[in-house]
């Protein structure tokens, strides 16, 4: 068994958090939206699917913020820990993304579960053929997991002060970016057209995930526990 696999298995030693957690929360959100849509009696293009992405973000934080010290105590290297964790993230995102794509197919076949609920179909983002939905979900879930890993690593390296600086830094960068783009009236050039396509968003998410993956590896190399 390679070190990567051992690390992935270590995370999955208790599979409830990684396998059951996102789906349990998703099912809860789905049922609430189903009841609301039925009560409203009209189409409901909800964005509640975001909960599964939030779950992946949380799992990313957990995988390093909480589990890293013991992982290193068990003799894993930082490199193998990071690689094993990232591979687990990709595998979970691929499997759960497939689940989301299949549920979207079911939603379409049943005309919104019989009540016009658009839970698994999100306009412009998750609205194409099933394989594009799978790809977008896979990339998006991986991105959120790796983003969560960043929070865990930063917490481990620089503690709460580092986390605050990280969040403030992101807010500052986004604010500056918005101001610059807004002044130039160049939202299209900044990657946003006002009718975004799923593939374009997927490509942007993919590029961002790749940057975070590589950057996270560099961050992890000097982490101490």
């Amino acid at each position, binding site marked *: 068994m390679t070190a990567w696999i051992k690390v992935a298995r270590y995370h999955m030693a208790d599979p409830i958090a990684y396998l059951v957690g996102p789906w349990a929360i998703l099912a809860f959100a789905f049922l609430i939206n189903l009841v609301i849509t039925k009560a409203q009696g009209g189409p409901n293009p909800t964005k509640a699917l975001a909960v599964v992405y939030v779950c992946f973000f949380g799992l990313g934080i957990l995988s390093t913020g*909480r589990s890293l010290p013991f992982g290193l105590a068990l003799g894993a290297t930082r490199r193998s820990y990071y690689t094993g964790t990232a591979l687990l993230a990709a595998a979970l995102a691929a499997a759960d993304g497939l689940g989301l794509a299949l549920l979207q197919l079911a939603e379409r076949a049943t005309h919104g579960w019989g009540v016009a609920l658009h839970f698994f179909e999100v306009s412009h983002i998750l609205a194409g053929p099933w394989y594009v939905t799978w790809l977008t979900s896979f990339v998006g879930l991986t991105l959120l997991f790796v983003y969560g890993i960043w929070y865990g690593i930063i917490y481990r390296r620089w503690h709460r002060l580092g986390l605050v600086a990280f969040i403030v830094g992101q807010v500052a960068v986004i604010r500056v970016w918005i101001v610059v783009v807004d002044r130039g009236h160049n939202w299209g050039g900044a990657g946003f057209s006002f009718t975004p396509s799923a593939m374009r968003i997927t490509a942007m998410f993919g590029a961002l995930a790749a940057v975070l993956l590589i950057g996270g590896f560099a961050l992890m190399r000097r982490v*101490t526990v």
Partner: protein
Amino acid sequence: MTPTISVSGLTRRYHSQLALDDVTLHINGPSITGLLGRNGAGKTTLMRIIAAQEFASGGSVRVLGSSPVENGAVLRRMVLVREDQTLPRLRVGHLLRAASWFYPNWSSGLAKGLVADFNVPLNRNTRGLSRGMRTALGIVIGLAARAEVTLFDEPYAGLDAVARQLFYDRMLRDFADHPRTILISTHLIDEAADLLERVLVIDRGRLVLDEAADDLRGAATTVSGTVDAVEKFAAGRAAWDRRSIGSQASMVVSGVLDDDDRALARLLHVSLTPLSLQQLVAHVPGWSNSDPKENQSA
């Protein structure tokens, strides 16, 4: 022969604070070594650097002949059990199962026995463990891993005297069957004294003592009696920690005493009490500062 643990000129600086200052030590082959020192002396930092959980500011560390940093071949032959270990939120049984995947010499039988001995609840989440249970869990992992290099950092926090004795017994028994290099840091020096083959003492980041435990036993003695008698007995010997109340005095003299010394003590009516390892360690900074050789020649 390649030392199991070789530390040369190791320094670790945190901003203006020097946590480790030019520490050099070598541990060869299977043994149980005590790493002793006060809180904040640098024991945990040293162990973390040996286990590659922390980075050195200067100097070098080699374990089993290689640097442990990002070296999977070395790290899977080493285990560090820490008092302040952050545990993932898993059931204890799952945690032990995960640990078994990482160590090639893991003994499930020993782990099972230790779990029963220490009453470790396998079905409980680590969040719900008491301090003593967390400690016991660390002991189970540290011993069942049967790693060639086993580092215990204050391994018995929260354990009562019975559980601590159980730990000593189990460790010695397993060490006899599966010899390995064990480095154990502790405050409970006298309790662990009989286990130790060698003693390292760290004080304010510096290694101030590195001796075989047998050489330390009886290496210093407290002499008590009247001021004159104690002064006469101590004349020409390395001595420190002089105390007196009225006509009575005591002081610590270094060196193994022979029959002539004991006869002199009887003649002077002074009492001789060998320092325990714990007392000796408490006196180490004074001992090293007093420079016994210089005093002897004075």
